[in-house]
Structure formats: C-alpha cells, structure tokens
C-alpha cells in the first residue's frame, strides 16, 4: 500500500481512539470518569492485537491486550453480531487488571466481516464488595472486592440486555451514576465502530487491515532497533513487598524477583522465584504484571515510538502461576494494580540500571495512596444541599518520583501506570466534613544524590464527622524507595492519627478499616523517592539552592553531603512556618 494511505489510516486510528475517550468522558456520570478521565480507549485488529490507543491510563491499556482476547474468546468470535458489546471486569474469567476497572469490547463489522474490535475501560467508583468505594486491601478473597462480571453480552444489536444490566445495577452503592458510566462506555464503543467503518468504506477494508498490520510491524521494527541498543546480558533484582498489617493477618512480605535477559532484539522477563500469592489485595493477575513489564520496556527504549502491541512482540514474560505476580483464583487483587504494579516497575528499573543507566530513575513512591473517609454528615445544611446523609470522600495523594540521570526527581506527583489527580482543598471542605489543615512538601523526603529524589507531600485532615471509617491503600511503609548508582533512599509512607483526646496512633500502609472521630487529625504522607548518583558529586550550588528553598534541612545537608558551612540563604529556609 502507498505511504499516504498508510499514514492517513494509521494516524486516523489513533485519532479515533482519542475521539472514543472524548465520547466516553462527555457521557459519564461519575466525577472519576467524566472529570478525572479515569478511563481509556483502544482499537484492536481482527486478531485482537492492540493497534492504537489514546494518551490514557497505561495500566488500563496494557492489560486490555490480554482482556480483549479473553473476552472475545469467551463469547466466541462466531457468536458475535454487529451491535454486540461484551462487558467484563473479572481478573480470573475476563483477564482484567482489578475488579473496579470494567471493560466494554465491541466487534466492528463491515460487510459482514469483523475488521476490528474496539474497547473502552472505565474505573467504576463503586462495584459493591466489603467497603464503600470498593478499595480495601484487607480482604480474604476476590469476592469481597465487589461484583464479578465474567465476559457476557451487555448489548445485543445496540440494545441493552436488561437482565444483565439489572444485575450489575443492583451490585453498586452508586447505581445511578453507574448507569451513566455504562452508557458512556457504550457510547465510546459506538463512536469507534462508526468511525472505523467509515474509514473502511473510504479506503477499503483491505487497506485498513493492511495498515493495521503494517502499523504493528512498524512499531515492532522500531522497538527491536531500540532494544538492540541495550547491551546483551542477564540483569537481575529482588525486593520484598510490604506486608498486610491488619488484625488477623500474618505479616507476609512476598519476594519479588526478576531476571531480565537481553538478547539482541529480544527481552525475556523471568519472574521465577517470586513469592507465592498472599491473602489480601496486593496480588497481581497476569495482566497487571504484563502491563508493568511492557510499560518499562517502552519507558527505557524510546517513548516516541507509536504505541501498539507491536512494541510488545519482542518481549517474553514468564510469571509462575500461583505467585504474587500471577495469582490464582480466588486471591484478592485491588491494590496489585495501583501499588504492587509500580513496585514491579521499580524492581525492573533496579535490574536494568546497569544496562541503561541513563534511562532509569531512582525508586518512587509507588502508590495511588487512596484515602477514603466515610460516615454520616453532621452538617444539616450540607445534607439538605447534597441530598444525602452519608458522605464518602475519596482522595489520592502525591509522593515523590525518583531522580533521573540528568535532573532531580519530581516533587509530589503520580507516577508510572496511574495518573488520576487529587481533590482540591476547597472542594473537599465544601462537600465533606473535613478541614485540610496542611498540604505541603516534606523536606528531606527525597533521597540525596548527584540528583536528588523528588519530595513527597503530606496532607493533614481535621475530622469534623462525629465518627467515620477511614481506609488508606499505601505502599512502601516498610521498604524505602532506593536510589540508583549511590543515590540515597527516600522516606517511607507514613499515616498518623492524632486523636482529639491527645493520643496518637499510626495507620499501616496496607491495613484494614480504622475509625476516626471528631477533632482527630489524620496525616497521609506517601513515600518519597530515591536519588541518583553519589551525593558527593552533587553540585554545591544545587545543594545551596535546595537549602534556600527548604527542600532539604541543614542537618540533612551535613549528614548527606558533609557540608558544614551554612550558606547565606540558609536563614531564608528557616522562616517561620
């Protein structure tokens, strides 16, 4: 096919993926999907190979490579008709990443033939299960995490299947907005269907199929060339995950272990030796492990390569079944997707550091760090205004991102596979009985190094609920984010409740539900991040600037960099706070 047609179809497919996401955001009912955009869209060829995706949530897109194939095969390709949409969220029967992320898959027919599949994936705010918001780590099995939806048809001939819809609706605490989210994900698949069909009518089905094949080969060629630039060898690393610390749990810290073999244009990621799956939602289904691996391959080779499944072809993944990185039914998984997954990326960056030293970063905070307060609202005016007596505040928190080979890390940021933002302070105070007392960067939380790790932030809430449940899903409460090439480690996750009565207690990163009362102060501080390179090589001007800006304290400068002389600007850093 000629280059013009190829380029137009190829770029057209990526634009269609973007338009699908827009259609979805424009129809969604939950703030998570329509404002935070916690949703993704992608296009697959008739062999269920991912050919185009938007600049959406990486964790949703990588795992869709597996779940789309599983979904289509579960129903059977020959059973699919135009206007059918398959729904599924289940990690065991649908190849999903975790239960709250629900996928819609739709075949695109042109002249009776399937020319493509399109998928939309959205984070449903509540899918039932043990706790409001469906985000608790201390569960015994996947059933406690919410409704399990195997691949089933939710639409036939563009009409909803009422029975299935009713069953799903009944299983969410937020069923009204969920119904809108379902329409939205359907609308996304509908737009994708129409646009791809139009492309096929304009350029011919054969041209579209050929462009898809060529586009996959094209990205594969580019990634192979990029892998070739990595020195051959076997690169290994191992680390321990944080344990679940809840009443009734034996603290287990499963080992994460990898051997990465780089052989010319090919990479093998062998996770053999990784610990067995555990009780509690820190396990990863295979889709999550694959996604973390693929993310890392893309990140350490060339981010400008057009992303599609061709990028993953030269990558082989071995993850022992029954391990924490390829868990078997019925292990629970919710935080495998948001916390263990970034830990896998950190593990890989540590392993690959000798191979691609300039492409890795110091280890990072590795958590969405969802903190959820839920209880009765004592403010009668607000109850009237909001039309509800209970209020659930779901917020995510920003930690550090590790230092790079040529720059300091990033302060207070979401890293790697997730990117949903945190709630504005003024919004939190408007809609919930919480007052935010402080939200600030934490000095010295970024590990020292030639380049310093990014700092974490600390958000302190004063509880004005009479009583509320509080859960947090953190990471790195026990294992600090390490530095690279002599860079020092960053700080640990910390969550503290200062009780109104004067007592104080710590909340574990992976704990159960705790109860907080009026006047309590809850501080959430994700982990910091690691530095890069020997601290002795850090430029003095950079250290002095950090001191003047209060990113580091004078004591830390003395300890980490051995500098005693107090720079002129130090006085500024010690301003009254």
């Amino acid at each position, binding site marked *: 096919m000629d*280059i013009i047609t190829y*380029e*137009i179809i190829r*770029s057209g497919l990526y634009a269609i993926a*973007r*338009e699908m996401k*827009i*259609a979805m955001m*424009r129809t*969604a*009912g939950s*703030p998570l999907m329509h*404002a935070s955009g916690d949703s993704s869209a992608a296009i697959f060829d008739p062999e269920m190979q991912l050919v185009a995706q938007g*600049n959406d*949530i*990486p964790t949703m897109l990588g795992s869709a490579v597996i779940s789309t194939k599983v979904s289509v095969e579960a129903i059977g390709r020959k059973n699919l008709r135009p206007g059918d949409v398959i729904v599924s969220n289940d990690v065991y029967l649908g190849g999903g990443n975790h239960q709250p992320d629900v996928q819609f898959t739709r075949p695109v027919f042109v002249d009776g033939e399937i020319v493509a599949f399109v998928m939309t994936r959205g984070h449903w705010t509540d899918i039932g299960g043990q706790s409001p918001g469906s985000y608790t780590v201390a569960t015994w099995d996947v059933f406690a995490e919410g409704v399990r939806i195997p691949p089933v048809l939710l639409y036939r001939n563009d009409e909803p299947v009422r029975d299935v819809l009713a069953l799903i609706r009944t299983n969410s605490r937020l069923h009204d907005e969920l119904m809108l989210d379902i329409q*939205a994900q359907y609308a996304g698949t509908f737009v994708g269907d129409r646009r791809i069909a139009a492309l096929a009518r304009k350029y011919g089905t054969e041209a579209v199929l050929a462009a898809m094949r060529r586009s996959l080969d*094209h*990205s594969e*060629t580019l990634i192979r*060339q990029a892998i070739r630039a990595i020195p051959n060898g076997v690169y290994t690393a191992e680390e321990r995950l944080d344990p679940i610390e809840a009443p009734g749990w034996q603290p287990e810290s499963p080992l994460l272990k990898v051997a990465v073999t780089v052989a010319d244009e090919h990479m093998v990621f062998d996770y053999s030796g990784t610990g067995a799956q555990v009780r509690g939602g820190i396990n990863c289904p295979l889709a999550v492990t694959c996604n973390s691996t693929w993310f890392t391959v*893309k*990140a350490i080779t060339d*981010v400008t390569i057009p992303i599609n499944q061709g990028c993953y072809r030269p990558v082989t993944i071995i993850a022992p079944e029954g391990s924490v990185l390829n868990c078997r039914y019925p292990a629970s998984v919710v935080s495998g997707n948001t916390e263990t997954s970034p830990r896998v990326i950190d593990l890989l960056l540590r392993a690959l550091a000798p191979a691609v030293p300039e*492409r*890795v*970063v110091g280890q990072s905070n590795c958590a969405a760090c969802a903190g959820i307060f839920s209880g009765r609202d004592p403010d009668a005016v607000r109850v009237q*205004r*909001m*039309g509800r007596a209970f209020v659930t505040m779901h917020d*995510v928190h*920003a930690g550090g991102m590790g230092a*790079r080979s040529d*720059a300091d890390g990033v302060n*207070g*940021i*979401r890293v790697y596979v997730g*990117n*949903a*933002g*945190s709630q*504005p*302070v003024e*919004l939190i*105070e*408007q*809609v919930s009985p919480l*007052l935010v007392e*402080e*939200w*600030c*960067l934490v000095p010295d939380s970024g590990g020292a190094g030639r380049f310093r790790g990014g700092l974490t*932030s600390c958000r*302190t809430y004063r509880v004005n609920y009479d009583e509320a449940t509080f859960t947090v899903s953190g990471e790195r409460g026990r294992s600090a984010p390490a530095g690279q090439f002599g860079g020092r480690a960053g700080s640990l996750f910390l969550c503290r409740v200062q009780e109104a009565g004067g007592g104080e207690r710590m909340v574990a990163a992976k704990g159960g539900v705790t109860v907080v009362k009026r006047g309590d102060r809850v501080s959430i501080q994700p982990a910091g991040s690691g530095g890069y390179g020997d601290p002795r090589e850090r430029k003095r001007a950079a250290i002095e600037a950090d001191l*003047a800006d209060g*990113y580091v304290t004078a004591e830390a400068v003395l300890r980490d960099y051995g500098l005693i002389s107090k720079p002129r600007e130090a006085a500024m*850093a010690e*301003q*009254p*706070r």
Partner: protein
Amino acid sequence: MKRVGIDVGGTFTDVVLVDDADGRVWSAKVPTTPRDRVLGAVEGFQRILALSGVASCEVGFLGHGTTMATNMVVEGKGAPVALITTKGFRDILELRRVSRHDRADLYDLMFRNPRPLVPRRWRLEVAERIRADGGVEERLDEAALAALAERIASSEIEAVAVSFLHAYLSPVHERIALGILRSCLPDLFICASHDVNPEAMEYERTSSTVINAMLGPVCGRYIRRLEEMLKRLGFAGELLFMQSNGGLATPALVAERPLVLLESGPAGGVSAAARSCEQADIRNAILGDMGGTTFDVSLIRDFRPELRTKNLLDTYAVRTPSIDIDSVGAGGGSIVWIDAGGGVRIGPHSAGADPGPACYGRGGTDATVTDCNVVLGYIDPDRFLGGEFHLDAGAAWRAVEETIARPLGIGAVQAAETVRAVANARMAQAIRIMTVERGFDPRDFSYICYGGAGPLHALDLATEIGIRRVVIPPLPGLFSAFGMTVADQQYDFQAPVGATLDELTDADLTQCFADLEALGTEEVARAGLGAAAPAIIRRADCCYVGQPDVIAVELTGGDRIAALRRNFEAAHLRLWNFASPGKAVMLANIRVQIVARSGWRGGTAGEAGAAAARGCGERHMHLDGVWSTLPVFPRATIPAGACIEGPAVIEEHSSSVVLRKSQSAVVDGNLNLVIELAA
C-alpha cells in the same frame, strides 16, 4: 479616521493601517525586537506611516496586541514574585493537582515538569484561615505579615501575590493583607486572589494570581514606554490593548490586570473573524489559523467567539475569560522526519524563524511543511510575501529529497505530496476533536482560515471534514493586526456566589448581578470607556453540587432562577449528554461582560496599491498526481461579485489558494473569497 493595528508576534510585528473613510488598507511587517519589544512596535508604526503617507497626528486610534505576556510565562522571564499563602499551603503552586501535566507522555520517565513560577524560598506563609462557609477559623496574624513585608522590602522582589484559602468567599483577610503590604511596599506591584480571580479551587486561583503578579511590573513598564514613545512621535489618538477575551481594553485596566494579555495575539484574529461573520451573515464558523509553528483552531457561535474561563498555558493554569483555542504542532515550519521504520512524522520540532524552513535559504537543512508546499508549487518562491522575500526553491527540493524522499525510497514530488496529505489529515483530526469535544458537529460550521499558510490547506481540510463552505477573509496573513482595528472594547467581571439555586430567589439573583454591574461599570468609567452605550451580557457558572467543573451559562429569559436552571440543564445535556433534573444546582460564580461597540464596522476596499503591483501569470504545480499549469489571479484585482472558476490559483501578498477543476470562488461584498464545496 485612520486606524492602526499592531500585532507583536514572536518573530514578526505585523502592522495595518485602515482609512475608515474609504476602507483602504496598508500593511507592513517588521522584525520583532525580543529584547525590547516596544522598539519593534514603534518601528512598525513609523513604517506604516511612511508607507501610507499618513501623519501620526491623523491616526485617531491604535489597537495593540502582543505575545509578550505569553512569552514571559513560557520562558519564565517575568518579574521576581513573592507569594503569600495561608499557613500550611505554600506548596500548592508546585503540587498543583498532582497528576502529570497535560503534555507529558505517560510512558516517559524523563518528562520535564515546568518549574514552579515562584521558587519555594519566596513562597511565604502567614497564619490565617477562612472556612468553606466563609467564616473566620483563625484571624490573620498581621504582625507576622508585616515582618514578611519587611523581608520583601530588602530583596530583589518586584511583585507580591496574595492567595488565601476560600478568599473568594470572604476576602476579609486578603484585603487587610493588601493594606499592610501596600503601605510597607509602596513601589511594588501587589495583587490578591479575590481580586484577580474570585473563584473556588485554590491551585488555579493561586496560579492565576501569581501569573498576574509576574507580568505586572514588566507589562506596566512596556505600556508606559509605548504610550510615551507614540506620544513623542505625535500620536494623540486612543490607544487600546487586545485582551484574551477578544475585546480591547484601556492601558490603565490592562496595567492593573496584565493577565488579560495572555492570548492577546491570537485573540486579534478571532475578533477579526467575528466581524467577518457578522458582515457575511455566518452564524457558526470554525476558525483555522495556520502560522509558522502551530495550527490554532477556535469557534464562532451565534456570531460571537466561544470563550472559556480556564486555560492551560505551557501547563500552568490560568483562569481569565479567553477565546477558546486549541493548538496542534503542525505549522508551516514544523520539521518533517522519517523514523527508522519508514514512518512519516511531522513535528514536534519547528524550524522557527531562524534558520526557518530550508527554502528560507538561511542554512536550514531540515524539510518542513512549507518546503513541501514549495516543491509542489503551492507556494511560488518568487512571489512569497509579494516577492519581498525570495525563497530558495532549490534548497527546498534538496531538503525534501535528502531527508524525506531518500529514506522512503520515493521521488521528491511524491514525498512532498505524502507530507501534505499527512499534515492535512492531522489538521482535520484536530478540527474534528476540537469540535466534538465541545459537543458540536463540524459539518454544521463554515470554515474561515487565515494565517500565512491557512488558505494553502483550507480546501483540502474542509473536504476531508465534510464542511461545505470555506471563507478566506481579506488580509489573511495580517488578520490578527487587522482584528486590532475592528474589535470592540470588552470588559469581563466576575463574582462568587456559592449557593444552590434552591437557596436563592429571583430577587437575590437580580441583586447579585446589579452589584457586579455597578462595580464593573464604575471601574470601566474610571478607566475612561468611550461614549458608546455598552451592552451587558450576563453569564452564570453552574454545576451540579459536588461537580468539580462549572459550565458558563448565558442568562436569557430574565433574572429568573427557573430560566437559569433550564439553560444550565440544556448546556449540560449538550456538553455531557445527560442532565439530572432531581439534583441541586450550584451557582458558583456570576459573570458580567460589558461590551462597547466601539470597533470599526465598515468594509475594507482591499490593500491599497496592491493591484498595480502584480500582473496575471501562470503557476506550474503538482495537483492530484499530475503537473499542470494553472492561471494565477492576483486577489486584489478580483472585484466584488466576480467568480473565479478552477483550476486556478488566487494569489495575494501573504498567501494563496488553489482551486481544483470543479471548484470556484466568489468574491462577496466584503471582499471575502467564498468557496462552496460539493457535499
């Protein structure tokens, strides 16, 4: 009266002079002087006077737009600012919303996070706290604030931004703080968040206030110097500045709130287009402005530019009413490259003005979209910018041959054709995404194109999207500067409300607007608004309770709560495809726009002297796969009412449009070229 428009861009300063007695127009282009942009602007003014033979004292009006403010933010070259926040919250400016910024590739571990606009050492805190209900939780520590002022006084800081939590609801502490700071620091530019952007969500409000502060001292100096130098040249007319909202404002108001200058350049083009729509009776239009480095898309609906109140400038949040414009990196100067897998890539790098595209002959060896247009004959190297700027066609051919054709294993012509097709597809996709994102179907719009490269691609884009009518206004290459001469004065004011519609009565609503209008009218009068009776447009920012984003709804059907609710739900339905009639609606802010119809509404008579400068000719070009020779019609020689049948080239000073065989262009009474396309 003679009217002058000066648009100071990143590379060139464009100037037009219009004689509103007979509609004659003169234009000039001079290099922008980045070190001191006033010099280039003044140079442009003198040039246009010399060209037109008009004396400076005859110029009654000067509209001025500049990209200076944008460049200062992007390059981090504003005045040194100190930020004072509520204790515990100085890092809001750096933490933002904690997600990676809008331009970061999410797979990129090396993404560059733009520097915080104020270094942490100058982000200061003072004890005070207002609650979400507007009540005082903790009183402002005035002594501590005075101590901070003292520290600032002995530093290099030139401006101070004050931003306290919930100050939009209760500015009491910010007002006290302003009083203390102004008395301690009389020479500094000082502003507070309740004044700059009285609206909820602390990061966006703080960021807007800080940007206003960093622009304040520099823009103030610029405005004073420009006024002075123009006066020295004998200019005694009215000087107004183009704002982001597409309207002009007095120097006094702009100096106080330089934030309104951020989209000053592109706003000129949009307000000119709005005037074209008004004259040609085009209700809805998509505007495509293709310049050297970007392709900018915006919308006209119901004869007015679509505005937005929230914007990202180089990833920094800014909230000020601003034309709703989306950019893609696909300008004429975008560099084309072939990746190792044989894929054609355009941008994100641009050849800029120096060295510029290869055909500029300034040593550039990378092929750009412009070079491809030269190879294919869409641009005549001998007549670029009316022949003032000769292009090196050989260099364009060499660059296309070496950097595109050879790696692809095809000929230079085919390579250039490929690039044009890919660039067109990219721009068509940008237009589609811009419109569907806002809930519109692009096929319901006309397409108005401008910018030097705009007309070159217009017909292909419109065909690709399914748009039926393309309009190319007069002076497309100088459209922004022209817009400065025709725009109205327009002032935007806002106030927070923070109550649900159920909690308000019609009388409350009337009172809110009356108060804001009184405040706005007074401020405008103080700044010396011209005699024309202003029109007032009322809008209300509404959302369902708990939603983080508001929709600005126009108030039609009187100050009635019921009408407001109806309009909000219709807008919500259009934008998000659903409404929730049972849910409480929050009235977050009210907005008042005061518009004085002060702009010129006559028609242009075309560019003076242009007709004589060029004769007819022929252009050899590659069209739809074959080389053919097309007749060339200089646009200035085509009278109103005439119709040009394709195939033909219509050429003008700054651009040209190529008509295919079945296409024809009609010149309407306002000298717009109108091309109706087959469905």
